[in-house]
């Protein structure tokens, strides 16, 4: 078991944002989390990566509890996070962005005095190739398009070589073709890493949900199951309104 979460709860100003009884993820599993806005999906990821401190509950990652650790310690344990709004280093070049992310010793003295370990350059170039940023490698990250920033952030997270990737709405702002490419990349990544993906776009979910889909509603886990089952569940359909509902019916 890569990740096991029990009785996890957090509230903001009296409003319960998340109240998760149980959640678990196998190693090398790709899990998709869906749910209406405000269901607590991003909050769940915030807690997993240490951005938000939960009120109660336990998180065991890779056999070790992570509650109370700082985001740096959690990142060192091997959890990487991609945010909903792309979060890259806009003032640095794409190459430098990737260089900083790449897994190596990250203390002050190493950064100041050590030379770059062998193979890093090749690793970065290969990654750039994979996410289609080879030609933009020496551009400033701030000058990239929204879709390219999404790619860059995914690359940053992958280069950290984490055991678990938390990917928040990767397809937002991408064209259908780009989204499909992202889906392929995620599927490929799930062969070596555990991956949790939050997504609204049902086409995209259909593409990547090879195993289980979890549905969060009002901070609680509504159901868990294969995509087809979830899609046809009356409770899930009831919970969804508007855009996503229409998409569910279309499928």
């Amino acid at each position: 078991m890569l990740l096991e979460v029990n009785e996890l709860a957090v509230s903001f100003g009296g409003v319960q944002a998340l109240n998760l009884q149980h959640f678990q993820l196998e190693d090398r599993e790709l899990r998709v989390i869906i749910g209406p806005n405000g269901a607590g999906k991003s909050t769940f990821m915030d807690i997993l990566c240490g951005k938000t401190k939960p009120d109660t509950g336990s998180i065991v990652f890779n056999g070790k509890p992570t509650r109370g650790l700082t985001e740096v310690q959690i990142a060192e344990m091997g959890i990487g996070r991609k945010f909903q709004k792309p979060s890259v280093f806009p003032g640095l070049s794409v190459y430098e962005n990737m260089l900083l992310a790449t897994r190596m010793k990250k203390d002050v003295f190493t950064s100041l005095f050590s030379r770059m370990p062998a193979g890093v350059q090749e690793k970065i170039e290969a990654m750039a190739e994979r996410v289609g940023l080879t030609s933009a490698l020496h551009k400033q990250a701030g000058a990239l398009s929204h879709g390219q920033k999404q790619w860059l952030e995914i690359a940053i997270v992958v280069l950290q070589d984490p055991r678990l990737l938390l990917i928040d709405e990767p397809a937002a702002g991408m064209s259908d073709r780009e989204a499909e490419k992202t889906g392929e990349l995620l599927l490929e990544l799930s062969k070596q890493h555990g991956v949790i993906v939050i997504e609204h776009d049902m086409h995209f979910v259909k593409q990547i949900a090879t195993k289980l889909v979890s549905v969060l509603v009002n901070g609680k886990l509504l159901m868990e199951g294969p995509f087809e089952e979830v899609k046809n569940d009356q409770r899930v359909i009831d919970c969804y309104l508007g855009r996503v509902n229409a998409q569910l019916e279309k499928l």
Partner: protein
Amino acid sequence: MELLLKINGIKSGKWTGPKWLWPVILAGAVLFFAVRVATDSSGTYVQNLFSGISLGSILILVSLGLAIVYGLAGIINMAHGEFLMIGAYTTYSVQVFFTNVLHVQSSNWFFITALPVSFIVAGLAGLLLERLIIRHLYAKPLESLLATWGVSLILIQTARSLFGDLTAVKLPEMLAGGWRVNENLVLPYNRLFIIALTIVVIIALYRTLTATRLGMQIRAVTQNRSMSACLGINTKRIDAMTFFIGSGLAGLAGCAMTLIGNVVPDMGQTYIVDAFLTVVIGGVGKLLGTITAGLGIGIFSKVLEAFFEAVYGKVLILLLIMLFMQFKPRGIFPDKGRTAAD
């Protein structure tokens, strides 16, 4: 009070440090004062407490304007102290006008006139500053800090060339003397007046912010600028009005300051750092926080000064503040919720 608490979110406030710490400190302080006051035959401690409250009132007067401007527009206005100076010089000018032009003998009238005049003059100066410089710097606190520092240098030098290095305003007759509580304890009227003025200003500002349309718009823009603009609020006008009120309050503080000190070109500089500390500790843009912090710093300073030299008191206050911020880095009343730190 109920409402004040609600507005400032104290009810849902989360305290992450040890839970017993603040009550213990508070209880200790209260006990300490109670014992001191009870055993105080000479009246020094009540006197110190009183000076502390009066210093706190001045800090509150200066900081309130800063707090609303920072909360609304993300501007660090280093020239805020100079509006205080403008208020003080306005009072001085009004006095000169009354004695030399109108030949009014009583020194009461000039002061009563000077109060609104200094508010308006400083407010207009603030409005001018907003139009010329500040509006280009919204939501850039650090840049605005440098630019307004430049403004403050210019204003100080202007005042120096206009008025010279040192002037003083005559204490109005009605505020001379003091309230003799007992033979050892006299509370000067001028300081009592400052405290009363502060209370009036707080109430007026609170009423303005909660009970008027302008106040509602100011709060709306503070919370979400673009949303307010979408709802048809003229944000530029609100910015200007807020700046007018904020600077005017500093002017009022300057007018009050003439009661207890000389009028000098760099008088604003003395208070600006303390005022910023007040805003920071109170939690940016929170009125109740500013008031609490202002009083706290005022009283602590005077009490510490009674035990140590004034300067060491200041250093100690700073150490206390740094310690405080270890526990509450976002002030007494921070914002809540899933606020995006990134």
